[in-house]
């Protein structure tokens, strides 16, 4: 199971790197989403995958009975997913607003904040 997860993570990262190398910012965003999911899977797998029951403590007991799954990575992944979702939502809104105002999604053409030097500037 772990090796299968590792393979999936590898494929996700490869696909995301491919997408993130594109000039189009929307593709970059998709790459980011894949990378975010790859990171979440890494955390999930790092807690070891056991065919155990959910980590619930039965009523009246002090500890869970039998083999239970590791609950910590699940809590971590949940946090990471929520945070990642918020950040991606913001980025998507930013990308949309940038497209509306800059009329391009080509990152090579986004040079407003760092305009290319013209010869005139150097000689001044």
């Amino acid at each position, binding site marked *: 199971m772990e090796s299968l997860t590792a393979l999936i993570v590898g494929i996700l990262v490869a696909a995301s790197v491919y997408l*993130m190398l594109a000039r189009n*910012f929307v593709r*970059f965003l998709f790459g*980011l989403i894949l*990378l*975010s999911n*790859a*990171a979440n899977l*890494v*955390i*999930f*797998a*790092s*807690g*070891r995958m056991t065919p155990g029951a959910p980590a619930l403590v039965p009523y009246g007991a002090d500890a869970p009975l039998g083999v239970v799954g590791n609950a*910590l*990575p699940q809590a*971590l992944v949940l*946090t*990471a997913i929520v*945070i990642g979702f*918020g*950040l991606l939502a*913001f*980025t998507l809104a*930013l*990308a949309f*607003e*940038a497209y509306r*105002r*800059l009329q391009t999604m080509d*990152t090579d053409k*986004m*040079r*407003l*904040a*760092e305009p290319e*030097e013209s010869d005139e*500037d150097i000689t*001044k």
Partner: protein
Amino acid sequence: MTSWLLVMPIAVPFATAVIAYLIRHSVAGRYVSLAGSVLSLVASIALLMAVLDQGVVAAQMSNWDAPFGITLVADYLGVVMVVITAITGLATAIYALGEIPERLEKLGYHALFQTLIAGVTGAFLTGDLFNLYVWFEVMLISSFGLLVLGGTREQLDAGIKYVALNLVSTLVFLSGIGLLYGVTGTLNMADLAGAVAEVEDQGLITVIAMMFMVGFGVKAGVFPLFFWLPASYHTPSFAVSAVFAGLLTKVGVYALMRMFTLVFVGDVGFTHEILIWVSAATMLVGVLGAAAQSDFRKILSFHIISQIGYMTLGLALYTPLALMGGVFYLVHHIIVKANLFLVAGVARLQAGHTDLYRIGGLYKSSPFLAALFIVPAFSLAGFPPLSGFWAKYLIVKAAIELDAWVIAFVALFVGLLTIFSMTKIWGMAFWKPHPDGIDPTPDRAPARIRVPMMIPIVGLAAMTVVIGFFPEPFVQFAEIAAMQLLDPSDYVTTVLGAQR
């Protein structure tokens, strides 16, 4: 009692943010923000007193014992960063009274600003790796908001690059956390210090260490991962860029210092050696990049990168003297760099632009501002007796003691080029006459805008001078901080044995 001391510097800005957001349509919002910043400073000084008294202060949140619960911990390095964050926060909160227009206040400027301060403070105080990630995200999302607040085309353009590169670095950092948990089974930083040494396959630890180095390196803005910084720092309002310049990259440096003294010390010859050459390249590339710029804030942005190199060099050399220099540099740099951005704001206000070709004459019309620029500018370049001289002196001396002549030479040479950039700003913005023939006197701006903008500049410049003339207590403080970093046993025992 101690747990309250640790929580307050984080809780105060958060509470302020909530109140400031609820009343963002009223002018009272800005005074709430100011009051919150004053309270934060009081809270962090109370924490400083406790740390000076006890060495390391730690507390467990929600009654979960370490290493299972979330730990908040303050040692000398952590607490000085919290205090300096509060000072920078207060300075920019005062500055914002003059600079930030009502339009941005109604969009929630003060709430975002206070959340940013809370995030930065949290990152300095946490003793848990995953919690550090959460603070990074709090800091990131509020900095995203502040960066594009107002929504000019330049800001959106800068925002895209800033957001994209920072998110990638966060994901690298997050994957590193996952892998480190996978091999050690713990996320408590003090617990990790012991657990990492017990891992059989140390090569795996080194790989994870490199992931952390890349993740934090992007935040810190080291070569070759700094490109988001000069692309974005010159676009938001001056108060925002001053906080960014002062604090955000330093969180990356702090995280590097913490992880590479506490956890990743198994293969110093490999990891820290890489960091040495990264630092040298950072210093050089930053300062050369600055030399090619002709915009007030762009020059300063490239100098942030160059100065980050000195701080990481202090960590990379990994001797008591070098780390001491690194800590001292960190504190000195936050004050100086935030102040320079604030000066740039006043220069823009009076002369009308930040492009150095389009302004001038500031020395003649406002010599007071010129004097206030000279102090942080020459401190940055390392002129005695200002604070930057001592910071550079410690780092260069540490490099020479290790016979690292090339590094020492690079550090000194970069100092020289820094003077070149600072004199360039001086010559073009202050000395030469204004190209449009305007006399950029202070009266060109109404006093209710200008006075709040000048107060923090005077205050921060005074601090630079005080540290410069009386470096003794600050150097001693940095020395103890360096000792705690090199021998984290006090940190570890305090955290793992902390009473809740």
